[in-house]
């Protein structure tokens, strides 16, 4: 077993958490994505109301992680943190500002220092200039390689599915492991032969609040859609590259660079200002040449629900069809949702003329 394979896991719940710091403290960061192994149901679902985010409920399931990091990204997450602290699991709540100013950047940087201290409290190594620089280099290297792989292929449906699997694997595996796999070109295997059939499919943009469950993507594939653009935590809002730092930088300069990189990434629905996100979405839609937008959100996600009027406005302006699908986390599209999806496709194709 290699050294990095023995490192304890730290679960992360939000794409604004700089994983580099966790790695620098001697842990392996791991994004909570499905399938989550449910060992003990007695605690989380019963403790939170029925009309509550199912992703947060998923984050509360006991597992083998040494700790979990939340952000103040939404009310449900905050309450999830409250609840998990009652069962003595080490948890940290990172106070994430919604806007990007010099003052909020300084504030977030301070919060990252608290995170580093907490990691030491739960048995991690102190984050030093060297360890942080090493982790940042490792992640940068990995992200560059990933991007190269991802850019090799066209926007073809099978590729999108594989790409999501790859990104989700990246988010849930140690960076060393992903690099090892990339070296043997394991992930890209078979991608090039696939996807020729995508031409007849309907190009759509899929947007949403959190990571799309792979079965949702499969449902869409079966409904004859081609995903030409995605706007998810795991896609355009994917963990960014901290590529401006230099090795001569001191610890605080490194931290500053990391802070700015994360706060500057494409905004998620929770961030203000809405117009910044609206402009980002409008450009994404325009450049994707999608014929429709499917907005997929989790039930009881307020940020997601507030995004629906925004998306409708953008789609109206660009004369693009829009469909909102709402499900619980880890559920597939079936029954009435399936009918909506099929009707959406029929409407875009406009085949049933007189």
């Amino acid at each position, binding site marked *: 077993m290699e050294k990095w394979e023995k490192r304890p896991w730290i679960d992360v719940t939000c794409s604004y958490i700089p994983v580099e710091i966790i790695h620098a403290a001697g842990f392996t960061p791991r994004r909570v994505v499905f399938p989550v192994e449910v060992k003990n149901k007695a605690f989380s679902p019963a403790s939170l109301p029925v009309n509550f985010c199912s992703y947060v409920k998923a984050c509360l399931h006991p597992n083998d992680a040494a700790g979990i990091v939340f952000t*103040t990204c939404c009310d449900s997450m905050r309450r999830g943190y409250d*609840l998990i602290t009652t069962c003595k699991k080490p948890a940290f709540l990172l*106070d994430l500002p919604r*806007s990007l100013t010099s*003052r909020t950047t300084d504030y977030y940087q301070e919060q990252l220092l608290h995170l580093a201290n907490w990691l030491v409290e739960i048995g991690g190594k102190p984050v030093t200039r060297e360890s942080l620089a090493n982790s940042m280099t490792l992640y940068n290297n990995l992200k560059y390689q990933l991007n190269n792989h991802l850019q090799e292929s066209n926007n073809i449906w099978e590729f999108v599915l594989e790409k999501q699997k790859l990104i989700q694997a990246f988010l849930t595996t140690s960076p060393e492991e992903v690099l090892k796999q990339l070296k043997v070109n394991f992930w890209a295997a078979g991608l090039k032969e696939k996807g020729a059939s995508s031409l007849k499919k309907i190009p759509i943009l899929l947007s949403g609040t959190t990571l799309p469950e792979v079965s949702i993507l499969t449902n869409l594939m079966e409904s004859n859609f081609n995903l030409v653009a995605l706007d998810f935590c795991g896609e355009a809002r994917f963990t960014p590259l901290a590529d401006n730092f230099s090795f001569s930088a001191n610890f605080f300069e490194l931290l500053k660079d990391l802070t700015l990189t994360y706060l500057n990434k494409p905004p998620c629905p929770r961030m203000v200002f809405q117009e910044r996100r609206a402009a980002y979405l409008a450009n994404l839609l325009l450049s994707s040449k999608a014929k429709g937008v499917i907005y997929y959100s989790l039930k009881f996600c*307020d940020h997601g629900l507030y995004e*629906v009027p925004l998306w409708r406005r953008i789609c109206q302006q660009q004369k693009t069809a829009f469909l909102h699908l709402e499900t619980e986390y880890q559920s597939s599209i079936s029954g009435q949702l399936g009918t909506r999806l099929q009707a959406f496709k029929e409407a875009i194709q406009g085949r049933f003329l007189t």
Partner: protein
Amino acid sequence: MNIKELIARNLQNKGIKYFTRPSFYFLLKILTAFWRPQKGRWPQKISLSFYLDLLHRAYRKKQPVVWTNVYTPPELIWALGGIPFMPEIFAAVAASLGLAPFFLKKAGEAWYSTDLCSFHRGALGMMHSRLVPPPDLVLATSQLCDGAVKFLEAASAFYQCPFYLLHIPYPVTSPAKAQTWLAEELTALARDLKPLLLVMPQTINKVANHSNQAREHLLAVNQLRQQIPSPYRGSEALSDVTMHLLALGTTYGTAFYRHLEDNLSERVKNKRPVLPQQKYRLLWLHFRPYYPNFLFDFLEKHHGAAVAFEEVNAVTWEKLSVDDFWFSLAAKILANPLWGPAERRVVQAVSLARLYQVHGVIHFAQGGCRQSNGSVFLLRETLRRHKIPFLNLEGDCIDERNFMAGQTMTRLESFLELLEG
């Protein structure tokens, strides 16, 4: 045709313009001035005058109107020379007039989901009906709930006016640093808003003094409420809470709480409780349904159960400082136990339950309120440990379609039977 129907009908036709004219509120203000209320009704007159004055000034547009969310200290905006307008409060006012369904429907038309908090949906409906004074700027404070920030952001886009966001540090780590940081934010905000608003030091002095005076009266009111039986109806207190959410820092706020203190002193002195046959005392968490409903009559008249105190009326902050206004305002914001880990709220609930010698605690679970409903588990567990009975009463403060009369009655009755032991 009753008044409610008359207003509702006018909302749907040209009559709407009367509600958006300053002269309409000015006229009502004059009429109110002639009202000589019975003894004990003075606070109601002051509160009515305050709202009419606020609407009159907001429509007259001599001062900039600043839309903000509940729990943003109103002193902040009064001190900056603006008129604070909290649409969530006006959603409750609309509900009390029976008009909420009209506005909720409007919000639905604009694609706002019924899963969102009805305070915000009601406010969005009022905005889309253009039945609220339009803002000159929108100032959101990132405390309490996500819905408030998102709703205010949508309002700023709707009215095409500047949007400011004040990040409120989450009080988990280093509170002292958080206060300093927030004070700096407030100072910077005041500087940024200077060209838009009228920041004058004498206003700050006035606002701080009024706020502190009102706070003293409110402290006295809260102390008088410890008397058994209760001198003040919980249902009224849950409506009057809007005065400390919006009127602190004004002459109205001070006068309101001064009269309220006088009333309650008189009631205690002359042994005139609001519920002579008081059987149970309750602590109320969160707000109440504001549309006409039977809930409090059912508790008070049928079962002799008085809401002795409400968490939203607790004075959790220290006096504001005239010399270091922004620093003390930052302290006020951060002292709110409803912001931050749920444990802060739970600790306050236990201590209020002890202080007001209640028999049980009711949490009114507002349908779309994730931050409050998410803490029910901890509230229930902690109160159980302290042997304080707890009821989580599901309902809705604004949307009466989510109020289940039969079920609510059964739950309340069972809870009261449980208190009887």
